[in-house]
């Protein structure tokens, strides 16, 4: 009923699909930076889509299990092993009592999401099991994991057929391995789009931006062509959301991620669309990223299409399991 964190790695935290309903109090959405990836991993192990899993940044994680569990993960190009067997992204694997699960460093990408059958059974705080690292609450003691932590796992009835090894079936490649060597993020225009002149706007789509090492779960800081606004005057603070590309007076854009503040006063130049947030969550220092514009209707169409496919996948997986 528990998992022992033998090595916590660079930054590993308990995350679910985040906190909604509390932005009015300044509480961030938080949760897995790639909620879709966590939902897929949860389905693969037979959990509820919203069960809490682990978000693993840059690997170096080693877990030991005290009972049999099914595990699956989605994310960057990590080397993941159960004992000495490789567990590829998007496949379900069984881990026996006493066995170890290891995440090496990713060749491409930055983060991955691990689901364990039964889920990580920490107490919900403000209706979520997510760790709010900035405000230090939720998840496991409101902090990232440390060597030696012992995480409680939820009840799991065991697999109906004795699980052996690693499943042959898997989820679509784009869902389980969203990291790309040359990522392109699709965006829609932000409310302050017209506050930039046309040559500045062309820079956003025409040139590549480098990911700054000063990036975290709150946002990805981008270096590259300066994006200066025509009028440098102050704006009234309004809501921001994961995906918002805001441009501070420095002209260096920041792409906000799940732990971003609830409000901000910088110009909102653009917003990365929801279906591409999983790609954004894979950006790591030094990566070069490009942007391409789509319409709001297209963003909605892509989201709906993915959700329909996800629905079919859910049906398929339930058939596999029964």
């Amino acid at each position, binding site marked *: 009923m528990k998992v022992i964190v033998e090595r916590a790695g660079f930054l590993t935290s308990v995350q679910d699909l985040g906190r909604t309903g509390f932005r009015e*109090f300044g509480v961030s959405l938080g949760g897995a930076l790639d909620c879709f990836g966590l939902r897929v991993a949860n389905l693969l192990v037979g959990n509820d889509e919203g069960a809490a899993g682990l978000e693993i940044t840059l690997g170096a994680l080693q877990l030991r299990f005290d009972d049999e569990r099914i595990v699956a993960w989605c994310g960057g190009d990590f080397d993941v092993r159960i004992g000495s067997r490789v567990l590829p992204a998007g496949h379900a694997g069984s881990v026996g009592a006493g066995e170890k699960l290891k995440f090496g460093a990713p060749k491409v990408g930055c983060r991955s999401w691990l689901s364990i059958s039964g889920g990580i059974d920490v107490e919900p705080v403000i209706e979520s099991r997510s760790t709010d690292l900035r405000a230090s609450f939720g998840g496991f003691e409101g902090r990232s994991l440390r060597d030696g932590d012992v995480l409680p796992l939820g009840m799991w009835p065991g697999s109906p057929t004795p699980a052996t090894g690693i499943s042959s079936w898997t989820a679509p490649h784009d869902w389980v391995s969203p990291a790309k060597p040359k990522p392109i993020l699709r965006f829609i225009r932000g409310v302050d789009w017209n506050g930039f002149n046309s040559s500045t706007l062309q820079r956003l789509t025409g040139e590549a931006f480098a990911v700054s090492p000063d990036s975290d779960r709150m946002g990805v800081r981008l270096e590259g062509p300066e994006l200066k606004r025509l009028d440098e005057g102050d704006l009234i603070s309004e809501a921001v959301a994961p995906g918002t590309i805001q441009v501070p007076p420095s002209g260096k854009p920041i792409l906000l991620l799940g732990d971003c503040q609830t409000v901000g006063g910088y110009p909102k130049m653009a917003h*990365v669309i929801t279906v591409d947030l999983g790609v954004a969550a894979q950006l790591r220092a030094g990566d070069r990223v490009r942007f391409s514009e789509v319409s709001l209707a297209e963003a909605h169409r892509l989201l709906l299409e993915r959700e329909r496919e996800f629905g079919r996948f859910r049906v398929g997986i339930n058939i596999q399991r029964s």
Partner: protein
Amino acid sequence: MMEIVPLGDSAVIVRMRERFDDAPEETLDTVLRAFQQLQNAAIPGVIEVAPAYTSVTVFFDPISVVKGTVAPGQVFDWLATRIRAAVAAGADRGRHRIATQRRVRLVEIPVCYDREFALDIDDVARRAAISPVEVVRFHSAAEYRVACIGFVPGFPFLAGLPKELATPRRDVPRKQIPPGSVGIGGAQTGIYPLRSPGGWNLIGRTPLKLFDPTKDPPAFLRAGDRVRFCAITREDFEASIHEALSSRAKRGTSYSK
């Protein structure tokens, strides 16, 4: 004036007014009325609604909206129509009940303006060409309103700072500000609920806990609240902290700092 603009593909900002500072009271009342109306309207697919200064933001799940037989290309227009209707209905009713809206609370916040907590009070005083004692008098005599909660959970941005006390943010933000610190940033005052970095000028500290994730609601203040600061002595400050700690111990609640 009402303007509805997309905030990405899963939220829209409903701007109720263009400016805030020229009429903060009226703006907040308008925004909070819209906030309430939008919450009550329970528009299908809407997940949450949150106010900030001049606007209310409506977060929604595009998939639920589309499942309600709206074509993907129509999501924004469909939602905007629903939002306009909900806010308009509220405005009509508001005319009949003037004293209305929701009850606005008046919250008193004890603040110790002791030198040890008021690291920047001399800067604020110098700028205003008054004494630090007068800074305290001005700050604790005014009535404020919470314009927005944000930055970190439970952080209130308070409008209504006497003009004399307006002080630009510090050039170099502090890396760590102790919880409860009361500060001035530009024309606003606010309270840091959590240990966090920050650039506001610190003039005092409250023993109150402004954010507590174990409580419902987790924040002590909400947008629209009226706030007054009352000056307390260092002894009172220490006593309140002690009292809070012991009652917490009695309840057996554990806090991670």
